Structures are given as structure tokens and as C-alpha cells.
């Protein structure tokens, strides 16, 4: 990476740059939008041990262990990942660290790619650890570096919370050289690192004292910044909300909080005393507002600013208008009534056929999180639940236990999700003898988050070969007798195997194994085309929801015929298998690349 230059970096790249400069030696995480590119960027550095772990808890365990071993360590995850890692996180606040340990939680207000929009600032308060909230790429780098200093000075893990706009947006950042300190080594200290009740009871007051000291630090920190302005309106704010406030009401006096736990309540109180009307502008929950109220400060906030969804300059303007501080904004023109364009499974996606089959069978489908969750939407519309990573199997077991359905109960789960949180669910199914079928959709990648490696792919984040987890052996070893493997591009075989597994009494597993068409390699096989004269316009191929299949102006018995866009068709053969009159054939005009 370059030294002393101005570069345009996303917040995620800026955090990776901070880790480089701060001398991080081990970094671990699990992919999750909007956090994923931090480790991907860091992995390119070469000198640093950067790894994907099977899930966020393991990543944080690795990070804590490395920190106790005496090297600076970074752990990264999306907001819901911290739920998975929370068990370790809560007690890591007791053990403290060896060398600096910083955990990045990338929250997703507005749920651009998430199942909820929980406000992870509460985790910092729950655990009793310091919390930093950068407001752009430049601060993402500076705050992350500072977080390592704080971690070491106060002997605590530090939480840095970004949001999607901070993580993904790009701004200009100045880079500096990497500085690695001498490794401290592991120093044995059971009273600090072995959290049996007797020792943990001693660590609890240490944690509370540390918070007192941190409070003093935050009161004096330059990250608590009083920005001069007209004192008729004072705003306490943090993170991206700070930027919106400055844009919308540039004249107001602002107390910008770079550290939002613990809070500099003395500074906030004197700020409150010097302004006529005090507002808190924050995204999602009234985290700051409630704390100010609890401290006896008269403040306004969520009465005017939304609690659900992302903030925006517009939402902040509307809030101040509702509060009578700003003029009402000019009405925004309605977006034109254009057709919506929701996300879709790709042409040739190996997830399509299994859901066509499940729909045909009429199973109750406990789904999970990944690209395949798109099968919940039309036209496949073959998924009945989706809650948290790995939940599908346990929920299928519960659905079967409830006796609430006569239909077969099937769990569908991606390969990475299975390794992340699905294995205990499968053990539950064996242990408590559930009559469920588990479909492991093995596409050899973490497709949803952009095609990362995982323990089943046989390749590490740094591109090195490693031993892949054998899914068949794993399922057998926990006690599943009926384990089948099928190519999901063979529709009839997929139907047969799923039907057979459902007929099996007790837990069964069907593994569909066909690589993703996008990652790690973009698949482009010989495309198909429709022989127009042969098409009977039955439109069965349309049930697959393939983006490459389009209508033509020709009709048959009043129904429209179809055509295939050969530039996007990947040649998966699924529509040809579905076509009763066999009107879908290999495109005779196609020339394989490199041969033309």
C-alpha cells in the first residue's frame, strides 16, 4: 500500500488502511454486508494474517486469542454478526486485552442487505466497552487507529461502529506508513484470562473503574468537538447524522461525539446549558437521547426524527421543520412510475431447480439467509421462513414437532450458512429424531456477500489451498443415515433425490453441488435459443424466473412465445429440460470465446 498519499477510499478500505498503519498482525471476521471489504482489502497487504472464520464468534475468539498473544488484532462483522459473537464479546470486556483489540460492527440502517436494522451501539453499553463512531472515510481511518491506542491504554476491547453509508461511500484519505511494535508475547495471568466466577467477580469492578477512567478521557478527547454556531439551536450528534446536520443546518451549534460510550456527560450538560433548544439527531434508536434524559437533560429528538430506516439530509431537514426550526422543505417530486427492478437469481443459478422442485412437491420450506432467499419471491415463491443465519434447520425441526402441518418439512441452507450456524441444528434433528429433510445448497462460495471463500471451498482468504470440509462425511458423522448428493442442473434427478429424502423417515440430507455462476469463476457455457416455430407458448420455462428469458411479439393460440437473450444465457440447460415441445436448443450461431 502507498505511503503518504491522498487516495479515494471507502470507509471499509480506510479501516483496512488503519489496520495496516496501526501494525495489526492478525485479523479475523466473517463476511457480511456492509463489512466484507475490510478483510478483503487487508488480505491484499500480504504481511498480515487475515482470515475468514466459519462464523463471527469464532472470529472474535481468534482475535481475542491473538490479542492475548501480544499482537494487535482486528475483528470485523456486520451488525447481526455481533449477535453471534456476543457471548465472547461480553466477557472479553472482563478479560481485557493483551495487545490492542478492535472490533468493527458495520450496521445497516435501512436494511439494504440485512434481515433487521438493530442499533449495535447498545452492545457497547451492555458490555461496558468504549464505542467510536466515525462519520466518513477519513474518520474511519483515524478513529480505528485511535481505537487501538485506547484499547491498549485502558486494557479493553474497543467497538468501532460504522453504518452502510460510512462503510461503502468513498472519500479522500491520506495514508501513512505502517508501524509495527514489538510483539509483547503471551503472559500467563489466569486471574485475568480464566473467567471462573471467583476471578470474574474480581474483574467486574475493574471493568466499572475502567469506565470511570474512560469517561474522563472522553470528556477531554478532541473527538468530543464543540462546533461554534448560533446558540438558539444546539445539536448533539454522531456518525453519519453529524454530516447531515451540518449540511442541513450549518448555522447551528453542534456537539459532535466521536466517542458515544461512555458519554462525556459533563460536556453535554454544559453544552445544553448554553443553547436555547437542545436536539439529538441520531440514526435508528434514541441511544443518546435516552442517556441525556436519564441524566436530567431536557432534550428533543425522536419526536421529530425517524426511528425506523436510514436518516438522510432530507429526513433531518423535515425533522427540523417539524420542530419549527427550519422552513418546511420544498416537496420532493414523486419518482416516476417506472417499473421496479428487484434483485433476482442469476441466469443459470444452481439454486433455481431445487426450489422449483420444492414448489412442485408443496413442502413447507424453512429457509435461511443467502442468495437462495430470493426464492421467497415470485415466480419461485417457495420459501416460508427466513430469520437468522442457521435458523432454518432448527425451525424445520420445530415446525415438524408442532404437528402444525401435514406437508413435508424441508430446511434449505447454503453451504457457508450451514458451516456458520447450521451444524448444531442438524445435530438437533438427529438427537431429537426429527422427520425433516435438509437441503444444503452447495455452490462453493459465499455468493450473497460477493463470492468469498469459506471452510468448504478449500481455499483461504489469502488464496492458499487448504483442506476443505467434507459435507457428506460431516452429515454422516453426526448421525444422518440418508445423505444424497445431486447436480441441481439435472432437474429430474434433483426431483428424484428430494422426493426420496422426504420419503425417508427421520432426518435426511440432500446436497446440491454445482458452483455459483458468478464466483469464483464467471460461467459462460454454450447458450440456448428458442426455435420460434416449435414454441407452443406454454410458458413453462417462465416459471424458473430466469432473467435471460424474454417475450417475443409472436403468439401461439393467443399466448406469447419466448426468446432467450444469448448474451446473458449461461447455458445451464434448465429451461430446455422444462420445455415440453423441446423448442429450446443450443444456439447454433454461438462461437466459443477464443475459438471465433
Amino acid at each position, binding site marked *: 500500500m502507498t505511503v503518504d498519499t491522498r487516495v*479515494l477510499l471507502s470507509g471499509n478500505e480506510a479501516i483496512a488502511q488503519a489496520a495496516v498503519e496501526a501494525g495489526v498482525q492478525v485479523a479475523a471476521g466473517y463476511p457480511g454486508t456492509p463489512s466484507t471489504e475490510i478483510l478483503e482489502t487487508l488480505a491484499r497487504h500480504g504481511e498480515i494474517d487475515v482470515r475468514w472464520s466459519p462464523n463471527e464468534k469464532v472470529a472474535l475468539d481468534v482475535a481475542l486469542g491473538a490479542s492475548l498473544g501480544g499482537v494487535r488484532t482486528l475483528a470485523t462483522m456486520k451488525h447481526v454478526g455481533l449477535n453471534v459473537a456476543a457471548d465472547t464479546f461480553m466477557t472479553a470486556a472482563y478479560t481485557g486485552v493483551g495487545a490492542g483489540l478492535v472490533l468493527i460492527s458495520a450496521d445497516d440502517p435501512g436494511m*439494504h442487505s440485512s434481515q433487521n436494522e438493530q442499533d449495535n451501539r447498545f452492545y457497547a453499553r451492555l458490555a461496558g466497552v468504549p464505542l467510536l463512531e466515525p462519520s466518513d472515510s477519513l474518520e474511519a481511518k483515524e478513529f480505528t487507529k485511535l481505537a487501538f491506542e485506547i484499547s491498549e491504554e485502558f486494557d479493553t476491547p474497543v467497538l468501532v461502529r460504522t453504518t452502510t*453509508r460510512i462503510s461503502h461511500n468513498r472519500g479522500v484519505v491520506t495514508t501513512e506508513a505502517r508501524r509495527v511494535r514489538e510483539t509483547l508475547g503471551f503472559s500467563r495471568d489466569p486471574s485475568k484470562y480464566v473467567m471462573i466466577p471467583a476471578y470474574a467477580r474480581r474483574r467486574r469492578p475493574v471493568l466499572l473503574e475502567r469506565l470511570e477512567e474512560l469517561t474522563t478521557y472522553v470528556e477531554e478527547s478532541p473527538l468530543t468537538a464543540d462546533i461554534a454556531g448560533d446558540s438558539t439551536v444546539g445539536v448533539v450528534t454522531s456518525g453519519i447524522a453529524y454530516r447531515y446536520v451540518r449540511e442541513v443546518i450549518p448555522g447551528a451549534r453542534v456537539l459532535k461525539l466521536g466517542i458515544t460510550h461512555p458519554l462525556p456527560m459533563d460536556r453535554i450538560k454544559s453544552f445544553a446549558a448554553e443553547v436555547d433548544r437542545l436536539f439529538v439527531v441520531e440514526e435508528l434508536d434514541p441511544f443518546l437521547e435516552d442517556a441525556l434524559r436519564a441524566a436530567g437533560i431536557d432534550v428533543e429528538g425522536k419526536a421529530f426524527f425517524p426511528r425506523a430506516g436510514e436518516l438522510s439530509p432530507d429526513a433531518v431537514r423535515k425533522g427540523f421543520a417539524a420542530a419549527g426550526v427550519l422552513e418546511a422543505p420544498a416537496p420532493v417530486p414523486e419518482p416516476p412510475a417506472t417499473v421496479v*427492478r428487484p434483485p433476482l437469481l442469476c441466469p443459470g443459478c444452481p439454486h433455481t431447480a431445487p426450489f422449483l422442485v420444492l414448489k412442485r412437491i408443496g413442502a413447507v420450506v424453512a429457509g435461511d439467509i443467502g442468495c437462495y432467499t430470493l426464492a421467497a419471491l*415470485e415466480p419461485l415463491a417457495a420459501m416460508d421462513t427466513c430469520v437468522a443465519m442457521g435458523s432454518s434447520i432448527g425451525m424445520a425441526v420445530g415446525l415438524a414437532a408442532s404437528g402444525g402441518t401435514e406437508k413435508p418439512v424441508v430446511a434449505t441452507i447454503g453451504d457457508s450458512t450451514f458451516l456458520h450456524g447450521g451444524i448444531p441444528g442438524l445435530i438437533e434433528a438427529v438427537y431429537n429424531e426429527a422427520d425433516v429433510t435438509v437441503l444444503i445448497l452447495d455452490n462453493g462460495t459465499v455468493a450473497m456477500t460477493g463470492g468469498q471463500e469459506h471452510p468448504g471451498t478449500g481455499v483461504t482468504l489469502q488464496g492458499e489451498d487448504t483442506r476443505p470440509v467434507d459435507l457428506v462425511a460431516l452429515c454422516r458423522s453426526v448421525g444422518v443415515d440418508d445423505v444424497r448428493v445431486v447436480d441441481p442442473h439435472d432437474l429430474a434427478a434433483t426431483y428424484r433425490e428430494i422426493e426420496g429424502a422426504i420419503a425417508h423417515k427421520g432426518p435426511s440430507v440432500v446436497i446440491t453441488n454445482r458452483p455459483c455462476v458468478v464466483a469464483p469463476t464467471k460461467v459462460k457455457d454454450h447458450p440456448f435459443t428458442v426455435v420460434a416455430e416449435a414454441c407452443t407458448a406454454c410458458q413453462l420455462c417462465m416459471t424458473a424466473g*430466469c432473467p435471460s428469458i424474454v417475450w417475443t411479439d409472436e403468439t401461439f393460440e393467443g399466448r406469447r412465445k419466448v426468446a432467450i437473450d444469448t448474451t446473458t444465457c449461461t447455458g445451464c440447460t434448465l429451461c430446455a429440460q422444462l420445455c415440453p415441445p423441446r423448442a429450446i436448443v443450443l444456439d447454433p450461431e454461438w462461437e466459443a470465446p477464443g475459438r471465433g
Partner: protein
Amino acid sequence: MSASCDVVVAGVGGQGVLRLAHALGAAAAAAGLGVRVGQIYGLSQRGGSVEATVRIGDMRTAFIPPASADVVVGLEPLEAQRVVPKMSPRATVLVNRTPIVPTSLTLAGGDYPDLDGIVEAIAAVARRVYVLDATAAAAAAGDRRLTNTVMLGALAGLEASPIPTDALLGAVAGADSSIDVAVRKAAFARGAGLGRDHAGVVGAGTATTPAGRD
């Protein structure tokens, strides 16, 4: 052209919206201009609508307020129309004429709207609208995937942004891409040619450039 300029890039997942926005941003930064790039990736990339913003100048956020974009680059007609509320009355709008039919529309049995109607809706708001066949120009340059690079070239040819052309070309050449740099430069040059043909055409209206004209 003032030093500040708000650009919206709109298209469909997979078309290279984010790469185009990044190239613009990197070029602005290389030219010593202040810049913020606003983008979201994730689910939207699975064939969904994608939008990015590039704010050149000393900006506090990457959000472009309603009705204030100076330049809009639409990699697909419907997606260009979708961002009409962002366009200022001064806006220069570039539209790639090759449509990508939304599958939701196909499944509902609907037809892709008429291109003239889309252009009219844009021209009702923006000052200048240029329609070009960037997909064909990219294919002619050697790779259809370079539609975004052709559009960037057209933007340079039109001198629609305060970023110097050599900085834009530098960003194209320096991008992290699997496509040969000579092909990328060729696509940029074709776009620049298409843009130059129409630079200086001022006033509402449309200029439709036939495919592969240069």
C-alpha cells in the same frame, strides 16, 4: 463549469455503475479536487437497480439533494428515468439506449416502455439529453462489458464535468480490471468521440447517435 459538480450514475446490477462512479471519483481525487462517492452494494447487485453519486467539490455528504444533479449518466434507459427527481434544470443527461428488460416486467407480461417516451420524460426536466448506443460501441471496441467506460468517455467528450479528460483516462487505465487496458482505452476513445460529436449542442432536445458511427 464551476468546480463543484454533482453526478448521478444509474444502471442495473452488473453494468458497472459502481466502477464508473469509482473511476470518476478517483479521477477527481487525482486532479486534486475534493470528492465524495456515494454508493451502496449488496442485494441491489443481483440484477436490481443500482445508483451511485459522485459529488465533486468541498461537500459534507455524498447525498445529492432532489432536483440538483448537474450530470446524470444512465447506463440503461429505465434506470436513467428512475433518477429524474434528482435532475436539476441545468442537468446534462447521457443515456445508453440499450434496454435491459426487468424480469419482473416480463413475468407480469408487460412490455418495455418506448424509448422516445423515456427521453421525453427526461427532457422535460433536464437541459440536455444525449442518447447513445454505448453497448454497441463497447462491443465494437472489443468488450460489451465496457459500456460504462464508453459512457465515461462520452462524459469526457462532452466536457460535462470539471474533471480533466486525461485524469478520466488515467482512472480508466489504472482501474483494477481483468479486461485488457488497450481495449479499455479504445472503449473510452469511442465514447469520447460520441461525446465530442455533440459537445456544444445546447438547449433542450435529444441527439441520437446511431451505433458505431465513429
